[in-house]
């Protein structure tokens, strides 16, 4: 028996971005906690491991992309079809990578201020990124499930990373218990899938389910339990309860990461399952998903109106964004899938940007999480205020910012597939959302500053903010190259 038959050069080529991440994370853990546990060297360690780790992983991803486009094939598969590297997986992996990169940059000063600066935090980011890689690229139930759990475990720990703070502990506990519960549902759905097809490969499951009547009760049970698990991960109503608490309690950098990367990965996962094995069950799940999407937009938007804590407000807004993304799945045509991809991309930039501003406000003794803490920001730090305005306009979906493009694609796919009523509901919530985003704007531009000192922040944070701001505007004003990229996420 030849070992290399289980790990071919091709297999290696496909998974090497994830392997690199795991290796760098392990090295960082070992060095920081065991070999050189001196805080003095922590900065160097982080610089020497996190960014190169992400960088090498990105380089390998780029090579994969080149190889894929050179071969002209739709996908590269590895490990007997457990992992499929296609345009879709690549597109989402780039989003994860950019989010991890930005979050690592902005975390540096924030964790220092919180007094919980440890190497393992960055190791967790790398591990989570590794899990997300498998979520986007996996086409095997076991691979997907392990990817999901790897990502989720890292997030459970990161949410509770502020050990000294009750809010953070409580958030982690809630997230862990509810998350474990939902994983159970998902595993149950997966077991039924396996039962029906006798295989863990999505491709074979798809064929097996297609052969069955979509209204078969077992198929329904399988679909429902899988959906519950997935909807929990994207924090769709009625499985959204954990999100506001987890978002509020977690360190703000983790909140940003959770709301962008975890959501993007879960959406990639959701699309894989619902556009793959469950595609033929569409008549059963489509009405259900419409209900979920409308409820998600409703609860997310209406609950956000009354929030006074920015993180909580952004948590509810992120719930409502999940509702919009679900609409792309409901439309289900290529425009809709592309719409989800575009939406996830622009959402990453604008939401990371908005959270980066909140992070910039955090200083010793000042939490800076209340809407009123942003009061008069325009007077003391106009740059931050204007950037925040751009991010909020984008979140609300006002042109010419990137957010408009995301919403635009969703509306486009809904009209194209004839979901007119749904499109009207979705557009009307744009106005509702604008109302609460502009509560923040109002406070920044009209309110009086309660605290005069201007915002100070690290170079890295400023860089991250500028990058997010520029991307939010560039994608909005000249979207063509980004739309081409999203186009590549569709099968040719």
């Amino acid at each position: 028996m030849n070992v290399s038959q289980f790990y071919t050069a091709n297999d290696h080529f496909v998974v090497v971005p994830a392997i690199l991440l795991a290796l760098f994370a392990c090295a960082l853990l070992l060095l920081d906690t065991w070999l050189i546990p001196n805080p003095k060297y922590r900065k160097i360690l982080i610089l020497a491991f996190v960014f190169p780790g992400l960088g090498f992983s990105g380089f390998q991803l780029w090579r994969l992309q080149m190889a894929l486009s050179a071969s002209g094939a739709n996908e590269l598969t590895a490990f007997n079809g457990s992992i499929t590297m296609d345009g879709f997986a690549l597109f989402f992996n780039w989003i994860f990578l950019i989010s991890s990169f930005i979050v690592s940059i902005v975390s540096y000063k924030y964790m220092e201020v919180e007094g919980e600066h440890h190497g393992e935090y960055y190791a967790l980011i790398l591990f989570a990124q590794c899990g997300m890689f498998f979520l986007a690229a996996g086409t095997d139930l076991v691979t997907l499930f392990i990817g999901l759990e790897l990502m989720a475990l890292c997030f459970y720990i990161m949410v509770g990373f502020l050990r000294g703070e009750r809010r953070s502990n409580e958030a982690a506990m809630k997230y862990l218990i509810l998350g474990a519960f939902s994983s159970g549902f998902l595993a149950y759905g997966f077991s039924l899938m396996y039962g029906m097809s006798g295989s863990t490969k999505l491709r074979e499951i798809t064929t097996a389910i297609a052969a069955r009547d979509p209204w078969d009760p077992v198929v329904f049970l399988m679909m429902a339990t899988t959906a519950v698990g997935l909807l929990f991960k994207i924090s769709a109503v009625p499985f959204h309860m954990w999100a506001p608490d987890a978002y509020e309690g977690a360190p703000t950098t983790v909140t940003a990461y959770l709301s962008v990367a975890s959501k993007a990965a879960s959406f990639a996962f959701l699309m894989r399952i619902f556009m793959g094995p469950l595609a033929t069950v569409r008549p059963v799940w489509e009405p259900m998903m419409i209900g979920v999407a409308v409820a998600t937009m409703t609860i997310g938007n209406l609950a956000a109106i009354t929030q006074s804590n920015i993180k909580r407000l952004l948590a509810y807004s992120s719930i409502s964004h999940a509702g919009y993304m679900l609409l792309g799945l409901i439309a289900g045509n290529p425009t809709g899938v592309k719409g989800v991809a575009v939406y996830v991309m622009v959402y990453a930039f604008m939401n990371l940007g908005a959270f980066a501003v909140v992070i910039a406000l955090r200083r010793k003794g000042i939490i800076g999480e209340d809407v009123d803490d942003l009061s008069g920001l325009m007077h003391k730090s106009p740059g931050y205020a204007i950037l925040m305005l751009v991010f909020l306009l984008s979140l609300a979906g006002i042109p010419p910012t990137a957010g408009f493009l995301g919403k635009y694609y969703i509306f486009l796919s809904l009209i194209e597939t004839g979901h007119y009523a749904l499109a009207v509901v979705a557009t009307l919530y744009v106005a509702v959302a604008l109302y609460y985003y502009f509560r923040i704007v109002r406070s920044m531009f009209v309110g009086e500053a309660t605290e005069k000192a201007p915002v100070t922040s690290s170079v890295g944070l400023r860089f991250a903010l500028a990058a997010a701001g520029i991307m939010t505007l560039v994608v909005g004003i000249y979207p063509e190259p980004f739309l081409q990229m999203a186009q590549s996420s569709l099968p040719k």
Partner: protein
Amino acid sequence: MDQHLLSVILFAPLASMAVLLLIPGSAKTAIKLWANIASFICFLVSIPLVTRFDKNAMSYQMVERADWIPSLGVKYMIGVDGISLLLVMLTTVVSFLAILSSWNAIEDKLKEYYAMFLLLETGMLGVFLSLDFFLFYVFWELVLVPMYFIIGVWGGPRKLYAAIKFFLYTLTGSVLMLLGILGLYFAHFDQFGFYTFEIADLLRLDLPLATQQWIFWTFFIGFAIKVPMFPFHTWLPDAHVEAPTAGSVILASVLLKMGTYGFLRFSLPLLPKASIDGTIVQILAVLSIVGILYGALVSLMQHDWKKLIAYSSVSHLGFCTLGIFALNPNGIAGSVIQQVNHGISTGMLFLIIGVIYERRHTREISEYGGLAHVMPKYAIVFAFAMLSSAGLPLLNGFVGEFTILQGAFEANRIWVAFAVAGVIFGAAYLLWLYQRTMLGQITNGKNLNLPDLSMREMFVFAPFIAWAIWIGIYPKPYFDVLEKPVAQIVERVRPGYYAGRTPTPLDQNMLPPVGGAQ
């Protein structure tokens, strides 16, 4: 510059804004000077538009066309015809005068204030110049943000409420309009097999009535809120009362015209069957007449000077929409001229309120009386504005209202009977306002020593008055410019109209089959 005249006009304010942002915030005079000079330059670059405009050309002129988002079929395409020419000129003139009028009125956050005005100017010009529906939509939404800040930051006591109300109202309308736009976009793909937002392409569509109707209603909500037509007008008095003077001027003079322009540029030509549909015409005409009468009657009851003028806008814009849905050359041409007129006269009236508000910091009508004794120049200017707004012959208002009524008479005589009542009420509330504030003895001691208009203020009013007299005495150039585009709209909505028939819009049976003669 020759081929890109329109782009230069469109982006000159934006470029000026970029320069403005480089001036340090403490150099207040420099900021004011630059904003004034820049907006004057923006006006100057728009003058070649008039001299080079060919009134006999049948289609859009000075068109610029480039791919913007090819994967969506979106183009950067701009051009002018007679209708947009007038509105573009109105925008550049009024923007300059509004900025000039703010010299003393705005004291804090100068840089942001003028930056917002210049951004707003680019947005408004973009709305009037776009020949691509997507581009139009982007500019349409772009206008909301600076206006929100102008009301919300530099406005009166209830500015935040007014600003967000303005934003939410218009946003709700425009996102629904977006759905209608997408409906047209896919309909075009179904018929011609390629995606485009270009107006000229969309014009070739031939849609069934039912489709046109639902698209018409989505457009209607977007445009009617902007105009604003009764019953969507409630944001307007709030926005006007709370906005700073220059904000009110721009809002009344230019922003509201975006709605009527939308009807003319998009609803009528793109959806001709729906636009001539008996029920729709009747609903639109009735809403316009209700707006005319309601606005006028509410104006009669106001104690607040600015609120009075705000409600008078509802009434005057009712005339504009009535003219549009008369669906004949007189009605539509009159409507466009009335839009310009309203820009001039109401702009002036808001400036007049701004002048007195700067001196007394109150807008209660009962606080004033007999101002003509202490401020004679002011009283004369006000008289011009008031008479122009009331539609006195030889001033601009008369030309517009008369032509609209002529068109409406041709369409339906009962409409005219009601609309004429609106003219009478209009004269009543304006004359009564003039009487209560300007005439008689000075009743309030605080008014005894008010300074009259300064040179700068005179300079702000002079162009408005000159323009009002010009249109009043010699409106021919305006009608000439409008003749071709208006004829195109009418021909599109009622093919064969010029062949000698004069059917009324309600008389469906007399109409020839629609859509054939293009």
